[in-house]
C-alpha cells in the first residue's frame, strides 16, 4: 500500500485488493492486480481518431521528441504505448501475452522497431523512454479507423465489436478529427474509435487536427480553424461527448518544441531573399524543393524544412521573420508553439486530466472490478458489488463526477443560466478552488470566500425552491455539498 494515498484511493485500493484475493480464475486475478498497480501509475492518455488525422505527429509534439514514425502514407500499424522510464527499451507484446524485447534503431529521428514477425501476431508495442514529459503521462498511439489497408481496418473493427465488459485500458482519450461537415455521417466517427476504452464527457478532449491545412494553407488558416473548432464545440452532439474542442497543429507544435538554431538560420535566409524570389520559392511545395531554386540552401536542407514545418509552417515562419515579429530561434519557437495550440492543449491536460487523474484512475479500477464481477470472475460477488456501490455513492468526488456526467449528457437539466456555473463548481474546467469559482488563480482568500458563500447561498435556494424538479434538486444538493467543501477548505486558510 502506498503511504501517499488519499482516503478515496485507499478505499478503492483495499476494495480491489479484496476482489483480487477472491478471484476465481487467473485472467481475472491478473486484471485486478493490474488495476491495483494502475492506481498509482501515470495517467494513460490514448490518442484516437480516423486514419491520417495526425495522431503520431501530435504524440511527438506532446513528448517534444520525434519518437513515433510519421509519413505521408498510412504509417502507424500497431497500438504503441510510450511510457516514461529510465532506460530506453522496446517491448513487443504478442497476442498470446508473451512479452519480448525487440531491437530498434533511431536513424531518421523516429523509432524503427525490428519486429521480427508479421505485424498481426502482435497485440501492441511498449516503448520506454526517458522523458520528463512522460513522467506522469503515458501516451498511447493508435492506428486509427477507416483505413484502406484492409488488415488495419479489420483489426480495428474486431476490437470495436469486442465485448463491452472489458476493462478500460486508458484513463482519458484525445479524439482527433479533421475538418469535416457537420452532417457527415462520419462526423462523429473519431469518437467511435473506442479501441482502448470509451471516452466520456469527463475524460475526452476533441482535437481539430491539421488545422494549418484548412483553406489551402493560407496564412489565415489558423484563424479559420479556431472558428471551426468553436463551432464544433457548440455542436450539441460533440458537446455531449467532449465539451472541449481545440485546434492543434501537431507539426507546428512539434517544430515549436524542438526548433534548432540552424533551422532558424535557414528560414531567416529564405526570409532575407528579395520579395518576389521569396514568393516564387514558397508558391508551391515543388518550388521549395526544386533543385535549381535561387537560394543558398541545398535541396536537402529545404526538404528538411518542408518535412519539419510543412508548407504552411515555412510560410508562417518566413513571414514572422520577414516582418520582424520574431528575431531569434527562441522567439520563433515560442510563437510556433503558441500558434499551434499545443500550449493550450498541454494546459488543458494538466488542468483537467492530471488533476483529475487520481479520480479517473480510481474510477477505472472500480470499472475493472465491476467488469470482472459481471463476468463471474470473483467469489462473494454480491458483497463486493455492494461495497463498490458504497464507495461510488459515498465519495463526494464520485458524486461530483456523476453529476457532471449527467449534466453534460443532459440526463439532468437545470435552468440554463445555472448550467455553466454548475459545471464549473463541480470541477468541469479544473479542480482548484479558484477555477471552480470562476475566479483568476491569483485571487485572494477573502475574494474566494465571498464568491463561495454567494454560490452556496444560490444553490441552497435552488435546492429548496418548489419550482425545482426532483432530479435537479438532487443535483443541487450535490453542488451545495461541493460549495460547503470549498468553504471548509478556505475557512482555516483565513484564520
Amino acid at each position: 500500500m502506498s503511504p501517499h494515498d488519499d482516503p478515496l484511493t485507499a478505499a478503492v485500493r483495499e476494495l480491489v485488493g479484496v476482489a483480487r484475493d477472491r478471484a476465481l480464475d487467473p485472467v481475472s486475478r491478473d486484471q485486478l492486480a493490474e488495476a491495483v498497480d494502475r492506481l498509482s501509475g501515470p495517467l494513460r492518455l490514448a490518442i484516437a481518431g480516423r486514419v491520417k488525422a495526425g495522431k503520431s505527429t501530435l504524440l511527438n509534439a506532446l513528448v517534444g521528441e520525434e519518437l513515433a514514425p510519421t509519413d505521408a502514407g498510412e504509417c502507424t500499424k500497431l497500438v504503441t504505448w510510450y511510457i516514461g522510464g529510465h532506460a530506453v527499451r522496446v517491448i513487443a507484446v504478442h497476442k498470446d501475452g508473451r512479452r519480448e524485447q525487440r531491437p530498434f534503431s533511431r536513424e531518421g529521428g523516429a523509432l524503427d522497431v525490428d519486429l521480427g514477425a508479421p505485424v498481426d501476431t502482435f497485440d501492441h508495442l511498449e516503448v520506454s523512454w526517458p522523458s520528463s514529459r512522460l513522467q506522469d503521462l503515458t501516451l498511447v498511439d493508435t492506428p486509427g479507423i477507416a483505413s484502406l489497408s484492409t488488415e488495419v481496418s479489420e483489426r480495428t473493427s474486431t476490437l470495436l465489436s469486442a465485448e463491452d465488459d472489458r476493462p478500460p485500458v486508458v484513463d482519458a482519450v484525445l479524439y482527433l478529427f479533421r475538418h469535416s461537415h457537420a452532417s457527415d455521417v462520419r462526423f462523429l466517427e473519431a469518437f467511435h474509435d473506442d479501441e482502448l476504452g470509451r471516452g466520456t464527457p469527463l475524460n475526452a478532449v476533441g482535437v481539430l487536427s491539421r488545422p494549418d491545412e484548412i483553406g489551402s494553407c493560407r496564412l489565415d488558416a489558423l484563424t479559420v480553424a479556431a472558428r471551426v473548432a468553436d463551432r464544433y464545440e457548440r455542436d450539441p452532439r460533440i458537446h455531449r461527448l467532449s465539451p472541449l474542442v481545440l485546434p492543434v497543429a501537431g507539426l507546428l507544435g512539434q517544430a515549436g518544441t524542438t526548433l534548432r538554431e540552424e533551422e532558424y538560420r535557414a528560414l531567416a535566409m529564405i526570409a532575407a531573399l528579395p520579395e518576389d524570389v521569396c514568393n516564387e520559392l514558397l508558391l508551391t511545395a515543388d518550388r521549395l524543393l526544386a533543385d535549381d531554386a535561387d537560394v543558398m540552401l541545398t535541396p536537402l536542407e529545404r526538404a528538411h524544412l518542408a518535412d519539419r514545418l510543412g508548407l504552411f509552417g515555412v510560410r508562417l515562419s518566413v513571414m514572422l521573420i520577414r516582418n520582424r515579429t520574431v528575431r531569434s530561434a527562441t522567439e520563433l519557437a515560442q510563437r510556433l508553439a503558441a500558434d499551434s495550440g499545443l500550449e493550450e492543449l498541454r494546459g488543458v491536460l494538466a488542468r483537467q486530466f492530471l488533476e483529475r487523474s487520481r479520480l479517473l484512475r480510481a474510477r477505472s479500477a472500480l470499472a475493472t472490478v465491476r467488469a470482472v464481477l459481471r463476468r463471474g470472475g470473483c467469489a462473494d460477488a454480491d458483497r463486493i458489488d455492494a461495497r463498490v456501490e458504497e464507495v461510488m455513492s459515498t465519495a463526494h468526488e464520485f458524486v461530483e463526477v456523476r453529476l457532471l456526467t449527467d449534466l453534460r449528457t443532459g440526463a439532468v437539466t437545470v435552468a440554463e443560466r445555472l448550467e455553466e456555473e454548475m459545471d464549473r463548481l463541480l470541477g468541469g474546467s479544473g479542480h482548484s478552488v479558484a477555477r471552480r469559482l470562476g475566479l483568476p488563480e491569483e485571487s485572494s482568500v477573502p475574494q474566494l470566500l465571498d464568491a463561495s458563500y454567494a454560490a452556496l447561498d444560490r444553490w441552497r435556494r435552488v435546492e429548496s425552491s418548489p419550482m425545482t424538479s426532483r432530479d435537479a434538486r438532487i443535483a443541487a444538493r450535490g453542488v451545495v455539498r461541493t460549495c460547503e467543501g470549498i468553504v471548509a477548505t478556505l475557512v482555516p486558510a483565513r484564520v
Partner: protein
Amino acid sequence: MQRPARPQPSSPAPAPTPTRRPAPGRPEPAKPPADLARVVRALDEGKQLAEQHDRPDLGSHLDQARKRLDQQVLGVAIVGEFKRGKSTLVNAMLQTDVCPTDADIVTAVPTIVRYGAEPSAVAQLEPAAGADGSPDSQIVEEPVDVDRLAELVSEAADASWRRRLRSVEVRLPHRLLKTGLSLVDTPGVGGLESAHGIVTLGALRTTTGVIFVTDASQELTKPEVDFLRQAMERCPAAVCVVTKTDLYPSWRRIVELDRQHLKTAGIDLPVIPVSSFLRLRAWRSPKLNEESGFAALFDWLRTSVLENATELAAAAAHRDLGFVQEQLRLEVAAEQQVLAKPEASAEVVGALRRRSERTRKLVERGNGWQQFLFDGIDQLIADVKHDLAGRMRTVVRDVEAVIDQGDPKETWPDIEVWLQRQVVRAANENHELLNERAAQLATDVAEAFALESEEPLELGLTAPVDVLRGLSFDPAQLAAPDSQKMVRMLFAGRAALIPVTLAGSAASFFAGSLLLLAAAPVVAIGVGFIGRKLIRDERQRQLTYRRQQAKMSCRRYLDEANFVIEKDCLDSLRRTRRELRDEFQARAGVMHASSQRALTSAERAASLTPQEREQRAAELADKRAEIERLGRSTRTASRGAA
C-alpha cells in the same frame, strides 16, 4: 491560440484574382472532331433529298435529329469528399471565379456551368412558401447576378432562400463549354456516405463523365474507393483527380499510393495530379499552366468524354439517316421492281397493299404496340409502387428499432441523419429500378412495333435488298437486311437515351425532390422540449413518450417522402409513355406514308408502256443512286460506334 497576422501583400499564398472572361489565345481542348460537322452536313443533304422526293415528314424527322445533335449536353459531374477542392477545380478549369470557394463554408446546392453567349446565372427555386410544398407546384426560375453567386449557393446563404434553392445554372462564354460540355459542381455537404452522397451517386447515371476529386493531403480512404466503384458502375467514363499538389511536398507518393489502392481494388481509371492554384494563376504566365497538370485532365475530357459522346451522337444520327434512306428507297425500289419484272407486278402490288394495310393499323389508335405500351406502363407503375412501399416499410421497421434502442432526446440528431440517408437510398434504388425497367419497356415496345410491321416489309423488300447487295455498299448495314433488326437497333439506340429524358433537363439534373428530402429536416415537434415539460413524471414514462413522438415524426416524414417519391416516379413514367407514344406514332405515320406512296408508284409503273418503262427505269436508277449515296461519306468513320 494566437491569431496569426493577416497575410501581407508580399506573402506568397493569397489566391490570385482571376478574370471572369477567359483570356484569348490560351491552349484549350480541341473543338469537336470534324466528324460531327460531316454528320450534320449529311443530315442536311438528307433533308434536301427528302424534300425533292416530296416527303416533308421525313425532312422534319431529320430536323429533329439535327436538333438533338445541336443540343446535346455532356454533363460532367465533379464529385468528392468535403473540402477536397471541387469548386476550385471547376473554377480552375474555366479560369474564372464563378463557383464560390471558402476555407470553411461549403457549396450547398449543385451548380451547373454551361455555355452561354453572355455570362448569366439562373437559380432554380421551389415555389415560395404558402404552396405547402406540394409537388405539383412548378420549379421557379429566377435570374440572379453572377457576381452574387457566392452568397447564394454556399451554406452561408439566407435560410429561407436556402430552403427553396434547388440548383443554380450558370452560363459562361467559354470555349471549353461550347462543345456542349457542362460541368456540375456537386454539393460538398455531408460527405460521400450521406444522403447527399447517395443523391449524387444516383445522378451520375445521367452524366457523360465523372471527375472524382481527392487531395494530396491523404491517400484514398475506403469510403472514397467504395464511392468510386459505385460511381463507375453508373458512369464508366471516370477520372480520379488529385488536387492541391502545390501544397504537399510528398504529393507524388500520395498519387502513387492512390494508384496502388485503385489497382488493388480492381478499379481501372486514370489518376491525374493537378494544382488548381497554379492553373488559376496561369493566365498571368502560361508556364504555370503546364506545371498545373490540367493538360492531362483536358486530354482525358477530350478523348474519354467528348470524342466518345460525339461518336455515339454521330451513330444515332446515322441511324436516323438510315431510317430516312430506307423510307425513300421503298418507293423507288417498288417501282423499280415492277419495271424490271412487269409480269410479277400484280404480286408486288398485292404485297404492297398488304403492307399498306399493316402500316395503317400501326397508325391507328389502340393498336397492338400501343396496347403493349399502355399495359407495360401500368404494370410498371404497379411494380414501382410496390417496390417503393416495400422499401419504405423496411425503413419504418428499421427506424423504429433504432428509436427503441436509445433515448430519442440524445440520439435524435443521429437518427435524423440516418433516416434521411435511408430514405434517399431507398428512393434512389427505386429510381434505378424504374429506369432499368423503363428502358427495357422501350426496347420491348420497339420490338412489338417491329413485329407488327415485319411481314410486309420482308415481302416487299426481298428483291430490292438483293439489288442492294449488288451495289458496293456498307456491309455492316447489309448484315441486318431485315428491318426488324434494324428497327430494333434504332430503338435500342433511342432507349439508351430514355433515362436522360426521365431525369429531364439540366435543371433537374439531380432528381430534385430527392435533394429536397435530403435537405429537409425531419421535424420532430417537441422532442427537444418534452424533457423539460414532463420533468416531474417518471423517467420511463418520459422515455416512452419521447420514443412515441420520435416514431410519429419519423412516420410523418416517411409519409411525406413516400408521397413525393411516388409522385416523381409517376410523373416520369407518364412522361416516358407520352414520349414513347409520340415517337412511335410519328414513325408509324412516316412508314404508312411510305407504303402508300410505294403502292401508288408501283400501280402507276404497272400501267406504263414499254418505252415509258425504259425511260422511267433510267430516271429511277439515278434517284436510287442518289439515295444510296446519302451519308455514305461519313458512315465509315462512325461504324465502330454503331
